[in-house]
C-alpha cells in the first residue's frame, strides 16, 4: 500500500468532499406545492434521482402514485422524498384534492 504524501492526501480529501456533494446536487430534484398545484407539473429525470416534494400551502396535501409511492399527509412546509430506481412514467396526485396531478418521467 502506497503511502500518500501530504499534498496528495490533501487532494484526496478535497475530492472526497466535493464528489458526493456534486453528484447529490445532480440527482436531487424538487417539486413545490403552491396554490394547489405541483410545480413543475411534469419532471424528466434519470434513474436513481431523488425527488423531494415540499408543501408550501396553508392546507395539507399528499403525494400519491397508485401502487408506487404514497406520502404521509404533508402539513405546511413538510417534505416527502422518493428515489426513482426504475424507468417509466409515474403519474401522481394529491389524494385529498384529486384535481391536483403531476407526472415524473424517469429515463
Amino acid at each position, binding site marked *: 500500500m502506497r503511502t500518500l504524501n501530504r499534498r496528495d492526501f490533501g487532494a484526496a480529501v478535497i475530492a472526497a468532499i466535493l464528489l458526493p456533494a456534486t453528484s447529490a446536487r445532480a440527482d436531487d430534484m424538487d417539486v413545490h406545492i403552491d*396554490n*394547489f*398545484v405541483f410545480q413543475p407539473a411534469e419532471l424528466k429525470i434519470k434513474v436513481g434521482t431523488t425527488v423531494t416534494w415540499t408543501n408550501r*400551502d*396553508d*392546507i*395539507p396535501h*399528499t403525494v*400519491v402514485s*397508485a401502487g408506487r409511492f404514497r406520502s*404521509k*399527509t404533508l*402539513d*405546511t412546509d413538510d417534505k416527502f422524498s422518493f428515489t426513482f430506481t426504475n424507468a417509466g412514467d409515474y*403519474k*401522481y*396526485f394529491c*389524494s*385529498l*384534492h*384529486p*384535481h391536483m*396531478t403531476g407526472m415524473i418521467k424517469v429515463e
Partner: protein
Amino acid sequence: MSGQDQGDDGVSRRKVLECMTWAGTGVLWTVTGGVPRSLGIIDSAEAATAVTPGMSFLQISDSHVGFDKPANPNALGTLEEAVGKINAMPAKPSFMIHTGDITHLSKAAEFDNAERIISQTKLDVHYVPGEHDFIDEEVKLYRERYGRGTKGHGWYSFDAGGVHFIGLVNVVDLKAGGLGNLGAEQLAWLEDDLRGKSKSTPIVLFAHIPLWTVYPQWGWGTEDGSRALEYVKGFGSVTVLNGHIHQVMQKVEGNVTFHTARSTAFPQPAPGAAPSPGPMKVEDARLRSMLGVASINFKQNEQRLAIIDTPLQG
C-alpha cells in the same frame, strides 16, 4: 317540467313572516320563487313576532380545529363563538348536523377539542366526515368517535320530524384528476335506503363536498353525485346540504334545493376569484362576517325548507 316550480309571484307577507321565525340577526334566504333571494338583515324584534316553527335543525361545517394559519390563527376560538351564537338562539333546534372537516389534521387532540366545544350546545350532532378527518395514519380516529351505527366509511340515515335524513361520505377513495366520490357500495345502499319511502317524505341529503358541480377546476363537486340525485328525483322535497367550500352558495333545480354552509374557521375565495381554493386572508374586521352557521326550518305541507345563514358577526 323544469319550469313548474319557477313561477315567481313574489314572496307573500305571510311567507316572509314564517321565514322570519328563524331569522335571529341573520341574513334570511327564501327560496319560494325558485330563485333564492336575500331579504337582508332581519332584527330580532321582528323575528320575535313570528309564528312558532315546525321542526328546525342547525348545520355547522368546516370547523378545522387545529388550523392556526394567517387566515385565522384561532379556529378553535371562532368555533367557540359559533357555539355561543347557537346557544343564544331564541328557539332551541331539534339537533345539529356537522358537514365535515371537524379537524384540520385528524389529530386526537383536535377531535377532543372539537368535541369539548361542540358538546356545549347540548344538542345531538349527526356528523359526516370531511377529507381532513381521515388523514391520521391509521384512519381510525373519526370512525372510533362518530362511526358507531354507520355503514361503510360512515354513511347512515335517520328520521326526524317527518323528514328523512341521509348522511353521505364523499371524501374516500378519490381518483386522480377527479372530484368527490361516493362509490358503488354507497350508491347501492342509498338506492336501497330510499326504496319504499313515500314520495311525499321530505328528504335531506348531507355530505361534505358539494354533491352538485360547483367548480370542477377546484375539485368542488362529486364525480358520481348525479347518481345519488337520480335516486331522489321523484321525491317532492329534496334539500342537499354541503360544506367544503367555506361560503354560502345556493341553487334550486326542480324539487331540489342545494345549499352550502359557511365554515366556522376560515373563508375561501369565490370560484375562480383567486389562484387557488386555499384559505383566504381577509382583514380581521371582516373575518367574522364570513364565518357562521346555518339554520334549517321545516314546516309540514311546505315544499321547501327555509334555510337561514347566520354569520358570526354582521
